[in-house]
């Protein structure tokens, strides 16, 4: 039973290996079970409960919250909540895509620097990040105000009525989102790009030629681990974002995050908030599953 085996050059037995692994994993595992899984599981029964007249939780079993989510409110049918869900998916997707398109050039730009300078440039990407998202988002309000150059330029070009700000608008939401999440994409992507095997790239270049093909067959497969982490780190918080649409969307571009925030902050409808939360988690998981399946295919090719 205690057969010897070689694991990463180590001569050991399966049980002792398992035991050591378990010991390493245990603290983190218990922590996540206690403070993430269990609390999360409470959301499930909560989503079937109802809000009492005074905003308290009434523990019953009803599908009311989910019906409401689908649009069947006490005031007749309206697909607002469903639209918000779709909008959330779309905004998160576009944000991730833009971040990706910007992150590759940044990662390669940093790589092109002498080794001693790279840390500095990478830090440069991280620094704005140390300033809280709320203030950075507010800062965009400053930048997009009517008195500032951007709005002046837009009104000089006839795109904007003089004296109006560039926010609230869809454009402002995307600008805010991208500048909020870009470092999340750059950091993991760079860690992959840095280790890129140059000789392999050259081989691909000889084989295929064009820069697009080099990227597709040389860069992409090699940077996939970092890319995956980057996409997850960007897409997921983008799905749950509410500060940016709150401050730059002017209550016109609501995402599910805003709805959840409202359910907990202003409606005090915890059961409905729980239902919305679960649907958001489900949606996020679904999107990631699709991505991962697709990701695997790229890896094989």
């Amino acid at each position, binding site marked *: 039973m205690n057969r010897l085996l070689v694991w990463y050059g180590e001569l050991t037995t399966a049980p002792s290996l398992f035991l*050591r692994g378990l010991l*390493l994993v245990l603290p983190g595992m218990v922590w996540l079970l206690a403070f*993430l899984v269990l609390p999360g599981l409470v959301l499930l029964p909560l989503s079937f409960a109802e809000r009492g007249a005074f905003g308290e939780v009434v523990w019953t079993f009803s599908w009311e919250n989910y019906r409401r989510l689908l649009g069947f409110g006490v005031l007749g049918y309206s697909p607002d909540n469903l639209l918000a869900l779709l909008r959330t998916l779309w905004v998160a997707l576009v944000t991730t895509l833009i971040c990706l398109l910007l992150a590759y050039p940044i990662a390669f730009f940093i790589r092109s620097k002498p080794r001693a300078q790279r840390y500095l440039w990478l830090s440069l990407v991280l620094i704005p990040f140390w300033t809280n998202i709320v203030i950075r988002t507010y*800062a965009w309000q400053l930048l997009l105000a009517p008195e500032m150059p951007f709005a002046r330029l837009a009104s000089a070009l006839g795109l904007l009525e003089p004296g109006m700000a560039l926010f609230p608008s869809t454009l402002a939401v995307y600008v805010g989102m991208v500048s909020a999440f870009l470092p999340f994409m750059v950091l993991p992507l760079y860690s992959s790009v840095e280790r890129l095997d140059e000789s392999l790239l050259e081989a691909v270049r000889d084989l295929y030629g064009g820069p697009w093909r080099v990227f597709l067959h040389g860069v992409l497969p090699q940077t996939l681990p970092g890319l995956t982490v980057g996409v997850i780190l960007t897409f997921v918080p983008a*799905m749950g974002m509410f500060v940016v649409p709150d401050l730059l969307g002017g209550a016109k571009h609501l995402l599910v995050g805003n709805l959840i925030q409202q359910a907990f902050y202003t409606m005090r409808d*915890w059961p409905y908030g729980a239902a919305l939360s679960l649907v958001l988690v489900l949606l996020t998981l679904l999107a990631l599953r699709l991505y991962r399946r697709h990701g695997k295919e790229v890896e094989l090719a």
Partner: protein
Amino acid sequence: MTRAVALSALALLYLPMLAVALFSLNRTRHGLGWGGFTWEWYLRLLQNEAVLEATRNTFLLALLSTLLATLLGTLLALGLERHPFGRRFRGFLETLLYLPVVTPDLILAAALVVAFGFLRQAFSLFEPGLPAMVVGHVTFQVAFVALVVMSRLQGLPRELDEAARDLYATYPVYLRRVLLPLLTPGIVAGAMLAFTLSLDDFVISFFTAGPTSQTLPLLIYASARRGVTPEIHAVSTLIFLLTVLAVLGGERLTRRSV
């Protein structure tokens, strides 16, 4: 081309900070008219007890939670990435790790509020305040640290481990002499990420903070809705400059050691 895109993307990150810095020196209290240059807001900061306390709380919270999360996360990564667990257990652990990553912070906050509500009846630890905030922050930081370290572990060639194990016999020695030094960039990157996540967090803090553990993000959010005061611009600019200094200092240190 790459250079142009990279530099303009960086500009996108820095423009907002530039604007904040500019307006922190503006005499006008409300609005965007330029009322002349002043240091007044910075001087006022020194007397603003709320801002000073929030600054202290913010960094204390980030430091404590990052330390704890880095430890737990690195152990998780080592255990998961370098040990042959059964398919099921491994899948379970991976799901567990991805859960906080695929859970938007708002939902974690909501779940924590409900859970802390129950736990509070047994342990005073979960009353709103710094301990509860640390618990909340570590919960979302752990997975990020673990993922970054794991991605680094995956990048290490297997031959390296094997060669190392031929040289060093026991696991602790191997861990200390080979794996951890190799992993240090990953661990540092993970810790940095965790630290920024903590500094950046608003939602979880909002749901778990008490009146004596206000952090800067909470203060800033409240002010943003009230109409941001120039003092807030000033404190943001200061944090920003402090960060730049810290990073430059860090870079200097690493260069010297090389």
